[in-house]
């Protein structure tokens, strides 16, 4: 094998973008996001980019973002799931009943028993996964279109949730369970720094590892300075995020209550930050796992291959029907995880939990670059999409935009984002085929 045959063509020196080998689409989204945040910050006289608001934005985004990662797989395989908000409600109802009725009354464990939260979450996951498998079998094996199955599911599961709770709001929930909601469960500054440090190390390790692997197989690598810049940007972003979350200080009154609960008194002048919310940690874990599944496993490879060409996938020996079941099972499980976060954040299960989430989740995935034609989409894009949607909504609320106008803007942004994406892809296509 001649190495020269594969050397890069010796034309103009590669552009900066090419040298850094970055996803231009991702950079465009981040750019738009930054511009939007700065604009809101200016209009609100600096109230938008405060640690407090960033903290709140983050925890508000988690539930939709978790489901959006699953929606990427669903849309990539050319399906759609309109039922995620309702499935979330059913999972939430199951978990509310398990922790407030089944475990305390029937099994006599009591509301705040140390095992309550584990059993509750397992029950929720089982319910969500089972619903997903059921949807997936109807779609994959019985060939009912996903649109119809999940449109039916939208009505069915919303009202199954109603029956499970007799239409009542169920609360209060288990105290450990509620720590998954956000503000009631944070890691504190010290633990957050430790995790931030570990995450930075992991980021550097991944960069080093991928460079080594490329060198080992004789592939071209980026110049060293580009790798160093990437590493610095990654660790800077991680540690900066931790610093912001740590900078949001727990109010004194709340601190005093926390100390009193432990039978201590609040020392004079003591302050501490919230740090990383557990719900955000859950989202990060979900994002990492889903990204690994998408990029590094056969399952992920088959999901994208099936989305790109279902016939080719089937002829390559991929069981596309079973794959559909798996994709919807993952979606169901993620709805359950979102249900944990959403109901814990509200501190109760209410009948309308997750209403219209299907639209937010689909919008997040689509704004994040998932193509409805299938075969294209990224996990980090969907999460960024969810963050953009949430920031837009709460930024407008902060500015004082009327509620109807807020929804008009969000709807318009969704369509505009896809329009821009379609145009960009078109021009990219032409360039390549030339």
């Amino acid at each position, binding site marked *: *094998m*001649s190495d020269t*045959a*594969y050397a890069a063509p010796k034309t103009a020196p590669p552009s900066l973008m090419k040298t850094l080998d970055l996803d231009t689409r991702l950079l465009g989204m981040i750019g738009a996001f930054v511009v939007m945040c700065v604009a809101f910050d200016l209009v609100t006289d600096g109230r938008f980019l405060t640690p407090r608001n960033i903290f709140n934005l983050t925890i508000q985004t988690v539930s939709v973002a978790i489901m959006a990662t699953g929606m990427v797989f669903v849309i990539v395989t050319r399906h759609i799931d309109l039922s995620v908000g309702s499935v979330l409600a059913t999972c939430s109802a199951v978990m509310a009943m398990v922790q407030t009725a089944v475990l305390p009354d029937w099994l006599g464990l009591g509301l705040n028993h140390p095992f309550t939260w584990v059993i509750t979450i397992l029950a929720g996951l089982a319910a969500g996964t089972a619903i997903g498998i059921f949807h997936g079998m109807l779609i994959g094996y019985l060939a009912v279109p996903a649109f119809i199955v999940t449109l039916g599911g939208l009505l069915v599961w919303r009202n199954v949730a109603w029956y499970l709770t007799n239409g009542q709001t169920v609360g209060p929930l288990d105290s450990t369970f509620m720590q998954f909601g956000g503000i009631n469960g944070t890691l504190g500054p010290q633990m957050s720094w430790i995790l931030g440090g570990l995450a930075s190390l992991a980021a550097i390790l991944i960069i080093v590892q991928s460079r080594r*692997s*490329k060198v*080992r*197989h*004789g*592939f071209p690598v980026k110049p060293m300075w580009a790798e160093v810049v990437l590493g610095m940007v990654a660790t800077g972003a991680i540690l900066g995020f931790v610093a912001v979350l740590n900078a949001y200080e727990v109010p004194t009154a709340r601190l005093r209550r926390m100390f009193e609960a432990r039978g201590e008194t609040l020392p004079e002048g003591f302050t501490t930050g919230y740090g990383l919310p557990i719900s955000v940690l859950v989202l990060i874990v979900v994002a990492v796992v889903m990204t*690994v599944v998408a990029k*590094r*496993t*056969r399952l*992920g*490879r*088959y999901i*994208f*291959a*099936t*989305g*790109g*060409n279902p*016939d*080719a*996938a*089937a*002829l*390559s*020996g*991929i069981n596309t029907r079973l794959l559909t079941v798996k994709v919807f099972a993952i979606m169901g499980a993620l709805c359950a995880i979102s249900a944990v976060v959403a109901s814990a954040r509200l501190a109760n299960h209410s009948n309308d939990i997750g209403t219209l989430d299907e639209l937010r989740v689909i919008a997040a995935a689509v704004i994040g670059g998932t193509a409805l034609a299938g*075969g*294209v989409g990224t996990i980090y894009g969907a999460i960024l999409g969810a963050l953009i949607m949430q920031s837009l909504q709460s930024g407008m609320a902060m500015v004082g935009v009327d509620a109807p106008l807020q929804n008009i803007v969000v709807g318009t942004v969704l369509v505009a984002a896809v329009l821009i994406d379609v145009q960009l892809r078109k021009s990219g296509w032409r360039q*390549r*085929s030339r």
Partner: protein
Amino acid sequence: MDRTTPLVQLENIRLAFGGIQAVDDVSIDLYPGEVVGLLGHNGAGKSTLIKILSGAYHMDSGKIRINGEPVHIESPRDARRYNIETIYQTLALADNLDAASNLFLGRELTTALGFVDDAKMEAETRKIMARLNPNFKRLKEPVSALSGGQRQSVAIARAVYFNAKILIMDEPTAALGVHETQMVAELIEELKKSGLGIFLISHDTREMMSLCDRVAVMKNGALVGIERVEDVTEDDILSMIILGQNPKHAEASAGAA
């Protein structure tokens, strides 16, 4: 030709779609180092027959033997287990994935931890491509960005890489230019020498005469006849395709009467 055990024996294969008998009691065999061409109009049942062998369709009745052993081929995965590789007319490529991902689709190389080993697959793809199509350099791009010939080389590489013993090529040159067609012809010659059996489907009678050892003509799902290419003329084959009858046999039977 060396008449040892046939590589493939298709015996009395039948398959109906609704009321249409797509393949009607067809028997064909294929020997090692042999190219058998399948000819016929659109809808004559060539592709359907071949898809039964490659596991995409299930036959209603009939028998398949590989190296004399009866086998059951229920899925493309089964076919691959018997070293049957297929290059489909549509190429069966996932357009959104790169060449390496397509080449190894369904048979990914994995690391010790069970994750897909992209670097290794890319390196292997380079090796096989250096042999098949040295001009091929766009390993990182989705195959939708490639030319017809480049896409074809990915599809061929997929069959060759996994040591096919039985190769099915459905219209391998339909989308190709002159140079690339020549490349495919040379490749077929080379694979033949290494002892593969090849089923070739094409509409181009002249091409078939030069590439194949035997040609089988189908019409309306049934087999019209199998002839050695040296025993027939292009006209004979054309009348078999159009009339469903070998003129030589017609003469012979007329002479006997």
